[in-house]
């Protein structure tokens, strides 16, 4: 499928958010507020990944 440049930019940023969130979780260690809030953010990021699927999933 031929997706727009706008979609590709969105996908890149969602992937960046995902990566950033995982990095945050890695350093959350013994910080419950950090770990739990980061997990909540991760749940929202997972939703964005469903809302904006990988291009390979559409072919």
């Amino acid at each position, binding site marked *: 499928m031929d997706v727009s440049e706008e979609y590709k930019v969105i996908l890149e940023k969602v992937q960046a958010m995902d990566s950033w969130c995982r990095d945050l979780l890695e350093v959350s260690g013994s910080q419950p507020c950090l770990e739990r809030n980061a997990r*909540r953010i991760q749940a929202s990021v997972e939703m964005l990944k469903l809302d904006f699927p990988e291009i390979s999933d*559409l072919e």
Partner: protein
Amino acid sequence: MKKTNPYWNPFLETLPRESLRALQLNKFRRIFKWAYDHSAFHRRLYESAGVRPEDIRSLEDVRKVPKVEKTMMRDIQLKDPFPYGDALCVPLEEVTEYRQTSGTTGQPVYQADTWTDWEWWSECWAYILWAQGYRPEDRVFIPFGYNVFVAFWAGHYAAEKIGCEVVPGGVLDTKARLLKIQEIRPTAMMATPTYILGMAETARHKMGMDPALTSINKITCAGEPGASIPSTKKRMEEAWNARVYDHSGATEIGAWSYECTEQPGGLHVNEAFFHVEIEDRETGEPIEEPGRPGEMIITAFDRKAQPCIRFDSKDIIQWAEDPCPCGRTFRLIKGGVIGRADDITKVKGVLLSPSAIEEVVRSIDGIGDEFEVVVEKKGDIDQITLKVEVLPDYRERWGEVEPVLKDQLRLKTNLGYRIEVHEHNTLPRYDVKARRFKDLRKH
């Protein structure tokens, strides 16, 4: 007024069908593998059928995967881990939400969801509410018990996600809720059709209040058929002077369908998140052509804690002929959920669906909203009794109304009925879901 995009997700909701099917296949393969790898129940089920994740190479291959029925869930949940059983695909400590089914068809089923699943619930509902015109400017009143049934929980969080102002209407009784509507002036509301009509009745007959004069301009119905039955929808819309929209979902499945502002006489299936198949009730063969009712088999692609994969919902649906003028490429099911396989029964050799009776009863002036149907055996013969309420203004004119009722029932259901007429407000009322159809032959 700022013009907003009519679609919550413009990309997915207008995705070309070919890409949508590719997405569905890829997602089905992933959730199938997830369940296969993470749940003892699913592994047993699939191994006994000889099907493995690598066997799914097309959407047609999906039919190789064995179905799950609600009765199986009840047995699964007798196993560990308590209380969900071995269909659970995540460690128990990742489960953050407990809900259960309403138990109208037997022992309730317990439903586990993780945080991500709960986000998924509110996201699916955001597709629904945005399609029904909910915007950040709306004030949304939710007259719901906020209890163990999933009901409108996700509607609440979706309305928040959209940016609406959400007014929780739990704990209050019906009169207090009506007074709150007058006081706070919400623009939207969510409830079952039974409760929407019940609130209107309480307003008019017990409080001297006209619900059509409130600030409510749109209502989302869920929990039972009604909002896709034309005469019931009309009664609700006239009572509240508001647009009434349907949504069909289930605790075990998710929020899989929605009516849009075009009100096309059907519901969109959210095909980016759910895969719907229709099967012939007699032969089990797949039905693709529009207009032929069958039983819905459904998969939720993204629900991880307690997956829903080829769940036999017992809902009867049919594909619509034409695409919706709204422009969504998500297919429509015509007339919403037409009935339940459990409820559709043969009476005097004729198939009878309770929703067909509802459509007739609510289309005739002078008959109240509540009714009851009793099917019993008199000797060897089936007898159907329809209990209706006559509205006070029509008491003297019942002689004119009853023949119309009988004629319409015969026309629409091919059956004759014993009619029992009751005074208004004497038949049972229901707070949430109604149980109007009683088949005493089964006892």
